[in-house]
């Protein structure tokens, strides 16, 4: 059993935290969700969402996974899973480089705030989101925003795809190596397509 600790050493959350373990084999990505989430797996979590949104921070364009950037995997996921994307403003240049122009642009803190409003119709105006997937924000900022959502957006499930454990999310990897991360991202991408 891997002991799951928050990425930042003192990042102790509270009673309700994501918890569980992660396996290395394809297709077996599992982090037991936050209490109350049941044991829904990642792919299920995404597939069952009616209106998921992927929120991409600027670090996604900086961080290498294998020979690509984290951002590339995220865009692949968005496409395969048909997930709308909100990029934080400073992430946008990297999207444009990739000719990706479908993303909404909004600062992370504004996204967080609006998600707490159950009446917010989303950046696409298509109605409230029910799953917010975060990736590529500075770890500590992502953590505070996820905490805000945990407490004040009970109607939304949260997921993070960073390779660091975020106890405030419903689904989070533990602190995993680049290799594990790659395999698991790939597995999730495959799974949402299924």
């Amino acid at each position: 059993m891997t002991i799951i600790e928050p990425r930042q050493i003192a990042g102790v959350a509270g009673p309700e935290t994501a918890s569980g373990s992660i396996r290395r084999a394809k297709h077996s990505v599992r982090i037991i969700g936050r209490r109350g989430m049941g044991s829904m797996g990642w792919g299920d979590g995404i597939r069952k969402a009616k209106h998921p949104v992927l929120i991409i921070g600027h670090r996604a364009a900086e961080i290498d996974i294998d020979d690509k950037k984290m951002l590339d995997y995220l865009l692949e996921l968005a496409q395969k899973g048909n997930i709308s994307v909100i990029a934080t403003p400073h992430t946008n240049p990297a999207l444009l480089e990739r000719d990706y122009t479908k993303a909404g642009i909004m600062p992370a803190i504004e996204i967080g705030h609006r998600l707490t409003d159950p009446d917010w119709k989303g950046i696409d105006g298509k109605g409230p989101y029910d799953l917010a997937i975060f990736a590529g924000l500075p770890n500590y900022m992502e953590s505070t925003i996820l905490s805000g959502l945990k407490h004040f957006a009970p109607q939304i499930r949260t997921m993070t795809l960073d390779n660091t454990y975020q106890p405030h999310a419903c689904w989070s990897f533990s602190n995993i190596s680049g290799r594990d991360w790659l395999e698991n991202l790939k597995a999730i991408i495959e799974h949402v397509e299924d």
Partner: protein
Amino acid sequence: MTDKGINLKIRELQSDIGKIKDLEISIGKFRQDNWTELQGPTPFPSMTALRNWDKKLLARYQPFYLPFSDHCDLCTYGKCDLTGNKRGACGINMSTQQSRTYLLAACIGAATHTSHARELVTHTIQKFGSDHLLDTGGLAVGVEAPTIRLVCGIKPETLGDLETVLDYLENQLTQLLSATHTGQEGNHLDFESKVLHAGMIDQVGMEVADIAQISVFGFPKADPDAPLVELGMGVVDTKKPVILVIGHNVLPAINIIDYLKDKRLSDEVEVTGICCTAIDATRYSPKAKIIGPMSWQLRYIRSGIPDVIVVDEQCIRCDSLIEAERIRAPFIATSEKNCLGLTDRTRDPADEIVADLVSGKAPGVLILDPDKVGEVAVRTACAVAPERKKSGTLLPSQEIIDYAKICTQSNMCLVCQRACPNELNIPESIKAAGQGNFRKLIDIYDECAGCARCEQVCPQEIPLYTMIVSAAAQKMREETFKIRTGRGAIQDTEIRKVGGPIVLGDIPGVVAFVGCSNYPKGGQEVAEMCMEFAKRRYIVCTSGCSAMSAGMYRNEEGKTAYEMYPGSFEAGGIVNVGPCVANAHISGAAVKIASIFGRRPLRGNYEEIADYVHNRVGAVGVAWGAMSQKAASIMSGFWRLGIPVVVGPHGTKYRRMLLGRADREQDWYVHDRRTGEKVYVGPVPEHLFFAAETKEEAMVMIAKLCMRPNDTVKGRATKLTHYIDLHRKLFGTIPDDIHLFVRTAMDVPVTMKGEITRVLEERGWKETIIPDPTLLSHQIIKKEL
């Protein structure tokens, strides 16, 4: 508080001992005979006096709480789990708890400035007398204390007058603090209102502190040409005995400088400083040198350069004594607030203290009389320096390599990185160092916040921080910069010149870089932002740690921001007002624009002035590395005036933002003062407290937040130009919310007309009018038709 002033008038008294006619004695009251301004509605406002104004702001700018902890443990009923808005044993819920925690921080911050002010005032009264006149800028500064006038409704003339102000502040702080007790305030918005009150109190406290010290110590008085002084670790002449002063209370530093002058040693001993004490020391004597902001403390000490360390109060590392012992530098604590367990030697003869420090019998001493510190510090420094200089404290390259080799990162250790607030990749840099390549370690030096948490956690006990500093030794020596020392207040004449352009929008904004150095990527970003906005002819203000960071970078021409741009409060100026307490001059400038340019009555008239500032003065505060409780209270003071503040990503740890909702049209109506109509003005300014993910995001947001309902079409066009231009440059596109900021076709910047018009059409934009904006219905002027 009741009015304790006494006014004894005797028209005629005939008694056994004699006869008096027309005797008048006023005590504890201000001689305000020559201040004809009418008293406003809220002099010395109580905790709830401005609650209605606060509610207006808070209705627009909703708190978004970001709990840093799921539970509360303030009392022994705890810990209480507040997850998901569960209530604690006292009935509190999470949002209320978060706002309470913020209030606590703001109270601590305001108490810190206020007690600092109290000490300065008490000390200066003892030395210069209660009747010593305040003077913050001679004839150039008619409104000597805009915040005191505004809040307290009095016009202080002497040091003694400041004492009544301080009584009020201490009283209010006691009340505010009491509201955080278990089972007091039960509503989060009322807590937020109290936060704003604490911020206002803090601004008064800061103003008191700075005008007192400016008035008596010959600091630059509202001087745009305040001297350029030396900045950086490289500016120290390490051959001389070096004294380091750290903190915020300049009194001991002044005594050191005076003693050196007295003994004609000014050129023989280096006086170097960190944090605001450093700025104030250079305000007192431009020979003093500023090392850097708070995050420079540990690196400078570890460098081994200082021979004696003198600490006063605030933002001093709690392990400063331990670190001083490590480099064998004698240590002098000087504040009641920070005694560090040291023996109080205040009443001992200087000879004995110096002897004990020099011999090492006492590694440190406590001296609570600032006027005794100079002699002890200087004599000790001179005595220990020769011996100390003989041995260095940094690690030679080979030792760095050897240490690096015992790192166990190959086993996925990584705890150093996980402990680092900025998640810097220390393991990788250590790996490289183990191979003799220090480049990555030096890169870490640049982004490092100087906290040493990495070193604290390393299971191999590798002295990581010393290694970083040692690897960067050469770089440190090259840190030679310039900073214009704190000029103090803004002149009335400057306000007269720029008031119009600011309120009309011709000057695109006033951007104030303030606060601490908990930067996400090092201080250089602050310098870059300052330069960018100065280049774009915003008025740029700086203070505190940010003022230092602003100077610690040279552009392509090899010049620092302060060398590139003038120190005057004008378009394209970079105005270092001074230490943290000088922040009061920045908000004070906004207030003075309302009063001097806008001709709004100032005295005890907070609400109207804040409404003016909020709707007309395109000012934005930026606290890129905001860290402390003081920063929390300073920001709150800006908010109550309706001035937005942008922080870096660490700022989310303050636990809540104050965010507008551009998408909710109903939030953005103002009254037109002239007609009484409600007019939609768009989300200006969009947020009151905003944390940006990156510098780039901050810059675009700053430009956007400078817009105000009152902008003329020309002004709005200018502001939009910068907003759109920055957005395009940094994010690659034009913003998708332009339609919210264009009121009439004339608002559209000519150069961008085509593009923007397209957007407006797409969005179904409709023209609206430009009102004489106010949030206050009682500000509506019944037009006589």
